[in-house]
């Protein structure tokens, strides 16, 4: 009997709590609590990183570089994409730092090929020192 009463009381409590939440949100159509499902996270400097240096051509667009970055960064194994100081979409030098434990190099290159119109290995991009500075 006690167990039954406890169960009923718990049920009433839950209903009351739900009611309270409904009251809180109902008036303003507001969302309660964080909506976050994912976000970027800091990876300590001592986690192993590798880099590939490439020369790529991207589908022409005013914001071709940004479009490429936004797609490639979806791969959590990519740490940083560092472009040469030139502008434009073709023949750009890019230095991609990645976490080989999470993203093997072949998989990374495959992804780059999907996003670019032309990809070739390159010597380290000719980047002006001041442009590379944070």
């Amino acid at each position, binding site marked *: 009997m006690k167990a039954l009463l406890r169960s009923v009381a718990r049920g009433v409590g839950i209903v009351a709590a739900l009611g309270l939440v409904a009251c*809180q949100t109902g*008036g*303003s*159509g*507001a*969302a309660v609590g*964080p*909506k*976050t*499902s*994912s*976000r*970027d*996270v*800091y990876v300590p*400097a001592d986690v192993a990183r590798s880099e590939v240096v490439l020369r790529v*051509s991207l589908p*022409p*667009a*005013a*914001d*071709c570089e*940004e479009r490429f*970055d*936004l*797609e*490639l*960064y*979806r791969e*959590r194994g*990519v740490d*940083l*994409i*560092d*472009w040469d100081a*030139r502008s*434009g*979409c*073709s*023949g750009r030098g890019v230095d991609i730092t990645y976490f080989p434990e999470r993203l093997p190099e072949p998989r990374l290159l495959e992804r780059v090929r999907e996003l670019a*119109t*032309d990809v070739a290995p390159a010597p380290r991009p000719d980047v002006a020192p*001041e*442009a*590379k*500075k*944070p």
Partner: protein
Amino acid sequence: MKTFSSWFGPLTLTLGLLPAALGLVQAYRIAPTEAAGRAENPRARVLAKIPDDPTVLINVKYRDLPASPDILEWGKRSTAALERCLADNVEAGIRIQCAVMLNALGDRRALGTLQTALEDWDENVRVEVVRALGRMPDPSSVAPLLALYRRSDETFSVRYAILQTLSSLSDQRVVRFLRTEMATEPDDDEPDIRPVAFRSLWAHRHLMGRATLVGDVRKALRSDNDALVYEATLASTELRSNRLVDALVPLMGHKREGVRNKAVYALGRIGDRKATKALLARLPKVRESRMLNNIAFALERLDKSAFYEAIDDLATHKQAVIRLNAAFVLGDVRDPQGLPLLKTALADASEYVKTSAVVAVGKLDAADAAQREEALRALAPFVTGDSLTLREHAIYATHQLSEGGRLDLIHDKLFQIDPKKYGRGVARGIRYRAAMALAEAGDDRVRAYVVDCVLGGSCATPTTRAYVTARADPSLRGQVLLGWARGKYWLTGMTSTLAPPGAQPLAKAMLEDAWPAPRSRNTREALLVLGSIGDAQVLPLVQRRTNVRFLRTKLQGHVARIRLGDPAASDDIVSTLEQMPADWLLAAVGTVAAADQPEARAALVPKLEALQKNADANLALAAAAIHLRWDPDRAVFRMLEGLRAASGQERRLAERYLRRTRGQRVTALLRRALAREGDDDVAARLRVILDRRRG
């Protein structure tokens, strides 16, 4: 005669001494007053008492109130006196000043006093008090602000200020209130406050469900208030919801140019192909270049084939201004697919259209050597043509297409232009632009020109300064030092980097010379150079200079100390930041970030990391902004935390600092954050920051 001669001597003496005697009397009468004036100037007396006597401003008259910047130099040590001033001074003008200063300070200890002062009898005091509450957002302010707003006898200006302040409070009660206000039609005899209510509601967007938000924006887009419609078009660009398309399309024909343009821009950003037909239909009716460009860019995003069909018509339009803009758009799109149309434009009768086409060809992204050759061949006739304007643009376009490989053309045909042939004024401009392009490419042939213009201050940009610094010989170092000593402060950075012989004694002398004026520019510049050169011999002098009450000089001095190898300065830097008015923190970030030597950073970073957790968002975000300049990989996460903070004020501050912090690395980190962000609101804010950094 004897009698006269016996009187003559004393009389002459008396007459001779009379002026002196009168002077003494005068001095006796005046000197005490002047002395009192100097020693006991009422303003100076009041100012001196502010940090220790909270009652000092209660009975002060307006003429005896010290200037606001002088009071603010006490920083948060002036809060108590300003609170009492606001509560107890009977002159409304003074209470207004005190409320304004409490706002600038942003010291949360004043919260209670400010809330009480919402009952002030003077309307203008209430306005300033309401604004100050926005600087220190707190849930306890919501109820009194809403109660004040609802008073039937409250004025429009106070209500307006309340709506603005509510934008900082981030509270569900505020969301409900603002949505009700938005839904209420204004009476005919009352000003329409819906645009400002909408702005405040938009500041609460992180507290609202997306569907509700989109619904509210849709409603605002259909409103009869132009200002509200404009606000809603801006919001639509950020929301990027397909549900807004049908409300935005009719706005392309709105009577206000701003609304028309923002509506088109929003449609392009939303990227819903449903809008293509409407954009195409609008195109022939366009009457301004900005609108034409916005439509073309929107089409390019939505439907490439529709874009090329439309741009084909525009490029061959009867009106030159339309053909000119078509060429401009083709250049910005960068697609070599536009080259045939641009070649047609290069043969246009109008020189303006030709110029626009030449520039556009230079921007094209040639995918292979054949495409590049074709573009270069199209430009070739203009490189040697008669028109000077076209020639100049064609040379730069050729240089750009050749991936920076035609510096020879820029040097020979532009930098060495003959002023006698083209006129001194025209030649000067062409030569200047050529020199800047060559300097950017690191070409030594323009060294003398660039040195002269950097020293003269007419082209002191970061690029030219770096160019000159990299080529500095002993003679140039001397010239830089001489220029700096003569007050050319744009040379401070170069003086610090080059550290010419004699810079330290000169900076030291400058600091000593400016000793009676601790707030002077000379003091700050001298401290900057002494800190950069880094010779610890001057440390005692710099330490002495920090013994002033002036917070900005103090901070500059502590920064110089830490750069000179005094790690104890890190605590003083933090305590000075804590004392500073919130208004000054934005500038303070740059001052502290200058201390970028590894030892200085090692001493400061742990303290800044602790400060980043401070409950005062102004202080926490300023600390994070300093850290961001030194170690963006790590510090960017505090900024991202700021973007998703419960407080709208913190979100805005984080946005502001992220927009201001330059550098390719920060851009890369923001793109990474955007690609991985799961929260719609944070993602939208990141997108806006990235767009603004690019623009």
